[in-house]
C-alpha cells in the first residue's frame, strides 16, 4: 500500500517534472536579458550587525551594533559583448558618482559563487580525541547585479554546491589525515534546507537547470564550537554554540537582473566566562530602500517541484536496499 503510494507520487512528480522541464527548456534557452543600455536601476542595501558579551562572573557587559542602509542608482551606459562586461554610472546616497564595470558572464559569475560559497574549518580536539567544526559560513560573496541569463550553464556550475562527495576540509592528527565531505557535514548537523527542502539527509541534490533562485539554510546548533586559546598553557578550549543559524537566498529575474539577496547569521555561545551573542544581516533589493522594508515573497514552489522527484526516488531506492 505504502509502496504503491510512493510509486504513484513519484510517477506524478516525474510527469510534472518532465512537463515543467519541457515547458521551461525551450523558453530558458531562448531567455533574453531584461537589462539594456540606458536602463536605470536603484538597489537598496542593508548591512546590520550586533555582537554582545555578557560576563558570567562579573557584572559587566559589552555590545557593538552597526546599521548600514544605502541606495545606489546604476545607469547602464555600455554593454561590451566581446568581453562580457557592462559599464554603469553609479550614483550613491552620499551624492558621489563614479563609473564601474561589472562582468556579466554567467560562467564566470556562477563559478565564483560556487567556489566561494562554503567555508568549513574543522580541527582536531586533542583533549577529547575528536574532530570538531570551529568555523562555518555559507555566502555567495560579492553579488553581481546583472548576469547573462544562461541559466543552464549557471546551474550546472552551481551543482557543485549539492555535491555531497566534495571534500570541504582536511584535518591531520596523529600522523593521519581525515577528509570531511559535504555529506559528512550535512548528515551531522541538526537540520538544513536546500532549495526549500528540509532535512534531506544522505540525499544527493540536483538543481533545476532553469532555476534563477537559490536558497539554503543551515542549523549548526550544538555542532559547531567556539575555540578559545589559552596563550600561557598553549591549549584550546571548545564550547558548543547553543544557536548557530545561517540563511542565504539569491534571486534573479529570468532576464538576469538581481531581484534580492539575503544573508543572515545568528549565533549564541556560552564559554567559561561569557555569553556571546551575534546577529548579522546583509540584504540587497532591486527597487531601493522601500523594497528592503517591504516583505519579500520568495516562492519555493517551483524549486521544490523540481527537486522532489530526485529526493523521493533516492529515498525509495534506499528503502528497497534496506528491505
Amino acid at each position: 500500500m505504502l509502496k504503491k503510494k510512493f510509486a504513484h507520487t513519484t510517477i506524478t512528480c516525474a510527469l510534472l517534472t518532465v512537463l515543467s522541464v519541457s515547458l521551461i527548456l525551450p523558453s530558458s534557452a531562448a531567455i533574453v536579458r531584461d537589462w539594456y543600455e540606458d536602463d536605470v536601476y536603484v538597489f537598496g542595501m542593508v548591512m546590520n550587525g550586533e555582537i554582545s558579551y555578557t560576563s558570567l562572573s562579573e557584572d559587566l557587559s559589552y555590545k557593538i551594533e552597526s546599521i548600514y542602509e544605502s541606495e545606489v542608482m546604476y545607469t547602464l551606459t555600455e554593454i561590451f559583448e566581446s568581453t562580457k562586461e557592462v559599464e554603469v554610472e553609479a550614483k550613491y546616497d552620499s551624492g558621489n558618482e563614479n563609473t564601474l564595470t561589472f562582468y556579466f558572464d554567467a560562467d564566470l559569475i556562477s563559478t565564483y559563487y560556487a567556489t566561494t560559497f562554503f567555508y568549513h574549518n574543522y580541527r582536531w580536539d586533542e583533549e577529547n580525541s575528536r574532530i570538531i567544526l570551529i568555523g562555518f559560513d555559507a555566502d555567495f560573496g560579492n553579488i553581481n547585479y546583472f548576469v547573462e541569463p544562461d541559466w543552464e550553464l549557471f546551474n550546472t556550475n552551481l551543482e557543485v554546491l549539492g555535491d555531497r562527495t566534495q571534500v570541504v576540509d582536511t584535518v591531520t592528527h596523529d600522523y593521519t589525515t581525515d577528509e570531511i565531505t559535504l555529506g559528512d557535514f550535512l548528515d551531522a548537523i541538526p537540520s538544513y534546507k536546500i532549495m526549500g527542502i528540509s532535512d534531506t539527509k544522505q540525499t544527493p541534490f540536483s538543481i533545476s537547470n532553469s532555476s534563477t533562485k537559490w536558497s539554503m539554510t543551515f542549523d549548526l546548533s550544538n555542532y559547531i564550537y567556539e575555540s578559545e586559546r589559552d596563550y600561557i598553557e598553549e591549549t584550546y578550549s571548545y564550547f558548543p554554540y547553543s544557536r548557530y543559524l545561517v540563511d542565504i537566498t539569491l534571486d534573479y529575474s529570468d532576464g538576469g537582473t538581481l531581484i534580492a539577496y539575503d544573508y543572515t547569521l545568528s549565533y549564541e555561545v556560552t564559554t567559561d566566562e561569557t555569553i556571546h551573542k551575534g546577529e548579522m544581516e546583509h540584504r540587497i533589493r532591486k527597487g531601493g530602500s522601500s523594497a528592503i522594508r517591504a516583505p519579500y515573497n520568495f516562492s519555493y514552489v517551483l524549486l521544490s517541484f523540481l527537486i522532489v522527484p530526485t529526493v523521493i526516488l533516492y529515498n525509495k531506492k534506499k528503502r528497497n536496499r534496506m528491505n
Partner: protein
Amino acid sequence: MNRKHLTKISFISILITILMINSSLHSTAATRDWYVGTSVKYALIWSESVTTITTIDALEGFGYCSEEMEIRFDIISIDSINHELVANMTIAGIGTGEFDGYTDAGVISGLLADSLFDIDYRWDKKGDRLVLTDFDMHYFDMVFFIEPDWEIFNTNMGRLLDRTQIVDIVTDGLWTTYEITLGDFLDSIVSYDIMGVRDTVDSQFTLSNSSTKWSFSFDLSNVIYKRECGTHVDSYFPYSTYTVSYTLDFTEGGTLNLREYNIITEVTTDDAVEEEVYSVIIQKGGFEAVKTPSNFSYSLLSLMILPVLLYFSKKKKRPKLGVIKNA
C-alpha cells in the same frame, strides 16, 4: 533702579564668592577617594549616526554604529612620587589587562586646556571672506583618576577661557593675515553656555579654584561651513544645525564621574542633505548609572562666574565681530 539692582546683585554675589573661596581653600586639601584596592565600574558608550539623502534623485542612506561597554578598574598600585597608578582593567568578552594611568593634576589639566578646543578657519576665495570650517572638542582620553589638586587644575583650565588667546591664523593668499581670538569666535557664534552661564557675549570668564565640574556647549548653526574641495576653488555650505556640548565631572576626591560629548550637525550641499549625530559618554557606575538621570548642578558654577559677568555686562555693550586685521 536697574543699576542699583545690578550693583546689589554683584555685591551679594561677590560676598558669596569670597565666602566660597574661603571654604574652597579646604578643597585644595581634598584627599583622594581612590586607593589601592578601589574598584570602580564605568560605562563607555559611543555612537554615531549619519543620514543622507541626495538632492536630485532622493537616494537615501543611513549608517549607525555604537559600542557600549562596561569597564571595571581595580587599582593595584599607586606611585605618588611619579604620579602614576596601575589598575587591572576588565572588559566583558575581552578579558583583563593592565591599565597604567597618569594622575598628575597639573599635567592632565595642562594637556586638556591646550587641546580641548579645535577651531579651524579658512579663507573662502570665492566669497572673499573668512569662514569657520571646523569646531570640535577633544572629548576622549583615558583619565579616570586624578590627584584632587583642584587649584592647579582650575588654574590651567582657566587658560581655556582667555578670550584674547589666538585660536587660529589665516592668510588670505595675498598679504593679509587674520588672527582669530577665542573672543572673536565666541562673539560670532549663535549662542554658547560655559559652566552653566548662557550667552555671555564679550564677557570675561573665571573659574572657581575648587571646581570639579566643567561644562561647555556651543551653537554654531549657520556660522560654521562644510568645505568641499574643488579643482580651482573650494565650495562652502553653511551647517543649518551644528551644536557641540562637553561635560567633565570628577568627584571631590578625583575619581571621574562623567565625561560626555555630543555633536549634532545638518548641512545641505549641492549634492545631498547630511545629518550626523555623534555621542560619547563615560560614566561611573556602569550602564545602570547612564539610565539614571544625572544630577549635574550648575548652581555653584554659576555663582562663581556671575559677578565677573555682571561687572563686564555693565561696563560694555557688545561691539560685533572682532577679526583683528594685521595688514
